[in-house]
C-alpha cells in the first residue's frame, strides 16, 4: 500500500507537470495574502504556546505508550496491577493539575494577564484588548 500510495503521489505530480501549462509571473510566484503584495517573510516568531503543547504532548504520549503493555497484561496483573497504574496516574495528575493552574491549557483571552486583571470588561477594555494599546 505504501508503494501504491507513492505511485499515485509521484505519478500525479509527474503527469500534471507534463500536461499542465507553466507560465509563471511574479504575481503567481508571490505568497497569497488576499491579493495584496506580501509583507515580509512568513517565518516569524510564533506563540510559545505551541512549543508548550508539544512538550506536554510528549510526556502524555509516553504515558499512553506505557499504558498499552499494561492494558494487554491487565488480566494477569489483576487488582494489584490496577492499583499500581492508578498510582502512576495519580503522579501524572499532579503535573496535570500544575499545568492547568499555570494556564498552559488556556488559549483564549482569559489567559492574557492584562485581560484577567482588568476591571469587569466594559467596552473600553474589550476595545483595548482587541485592537491593542497603540490605537
Amino acid at each position: 500500500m505504501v508503494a501504491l500510495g507513492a505511485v499515485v503521489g509521484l505519478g500525479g505530480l509527474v503527469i500534471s507537470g507534463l500536461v499542465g501549462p507553466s507560465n509563471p509571473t511574479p504575481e503567481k510566484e508571490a505568497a497569497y495574502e488576499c491579493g495584496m503584495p506580501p509583507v515580509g517573510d512568513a517565518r516569524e516568531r510564533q506563540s510559545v504556546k505551541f512549543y508548550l503543547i508539544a512538550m506536554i504532548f510528549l510526556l502524555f504520549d509516553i504515558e499512553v505508550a506505557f499504558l498499552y503493555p499494561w492494558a494487554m497484561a491487565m488480566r494477569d496483573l489483576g487488582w494489584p496491577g490496577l492499583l499500581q497504574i492508578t498510582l502512576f496516574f495519580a503522579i501524572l495528575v499532579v503535573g496535570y493539575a500544575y499545568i492547568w493552574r499555570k494556564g498552559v491549557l488556556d488559549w483564549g483571552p482569559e489567559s492574557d494577564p492584562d485581560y484577567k486583571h482588568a476591571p469587569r470588561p466594559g467596552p473600553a477594555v474589550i476595545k483595548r484588548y482587541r485592537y491593542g494599546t497603540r490605537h
Partner: protein
Amino acid sequence: MSGVLDWLTMPQTIFFLAVTGVVFLALQVSAAVFVYAERKVAAFMQQRYGPYLVGPKGLLQPIADIVKLVFKEELRPKAADGLLFAAAPVISAIAAFAAFAPVPFGASTTFFGLLPEPMPLQVADINVAVLVIFAITSMGVYGIVLAGWASNSKYSLLGGLRSSAQMISYELAYGMSLATICMIAGSLSLREIVDAQAGYYFGVIPKWNVFVLFPTGFIAFLVFGTAGVAETNRAPFDFPEAEQELVAGYHTEYSSMKFALFFLAEYINMVTAAAVTTNLFLGGWHGPLIPEAYGWIWFLIKLFVLCFVYLWLRWTLPRFRYDQLMAFGWKLLLPLATINLLVSAAGVLYFGL
C-alpha cells in the same frame, strides 16, 4: 527466477495481489464518491441542487474535477522550499493509503473454495494493527506541517501550526479510548477485536464494543469518534483550513495535482477513520441476517452510515473557537478517557470478563 514465477502463480499470491488492488482502487473511488456525496448532502441540507450537470445527476462531477486539476498549472511561491513543497502532498497521500492496509473488512474466506486455506480479507494481517494504524495516521501530520512550513505563506504556516497542535492534543484522548477497547478485547489485532464482538447479549443486543460494560464502551466510542473527527481535521474541528480565518490553511499555496493529493488524502483518512471505528466499536462485519461469508456487506453499511455522520456533523455544527478546541481536548476529553479507562479496567476485573 522460476522461484519468483512459482510464487507469483500461487493462488494465495494472486488473491493477495487482487485484494490489495481492490482495496487500493476502492479507496480512490471512495474518495471520489465521498466528494460527490459531500456536495450532494450539503446541497440537500441547504435546500439546493448541488452538482447536476456532469453526467446523470452530476455523478461524473468528481471525474471532471480530477481531469480539470490534472490540466491546471502548478504554482509555487518563489520563497517556498521546493523539495519539501513537493514532498508534503506525497507524504500525505502515502500515509493515507498505508493507514488502510491493516484494516480488515471481512471474515476469512476461501473465495468459494478457490483457495486451499481461508485467507483474511485485508491487505496486511498484523497482530499489532491498532498501533500500526495509530502510528501511520500520526505520520499524516507531517504532510500538513511540512506543507504549511514549506509554502512560506502566513496562512499556510498558521494552518500547519494549528493543525499540529490540534492533532497531537487529540491524539492523547484517541490513544486512551483505543487502549480501553484493546484492554477489554485483550488484543491489539483488529481481526481479533472484531471476532470478540460476534454474538448477542440476551439474544437481542449485539455484542459490539459500543455496548460493552455500559456505559464505558459507549463513552470510549464517543471520545474516539470525537477525537477521530479532530484527527481528520473535519468540521467542527477544521482549524487547519478554516476558510473564514485562514483562506485555505495549509494548502493555500497549492494548486493542480498537489492540491488534489491533499484532497484525496483527507477523504481517504476519513474513510479509514470510519472503518477503524466500525471495526473497534460497531462489530465490524458481524451483523444479523447476512451470512458470515458476506459480512463485508455489513461492514460497508456501517462504514457508509459513519461517513454520512461525518458529513452531517459538518453541516450541522459550527466551528469551535481555538481556545475552546484546546480546552475541550485537554480539559474534557483527556480526563474523561483516562477515568473511563480505569473504570473499565475495574469493571473487567470485577465482572471477570
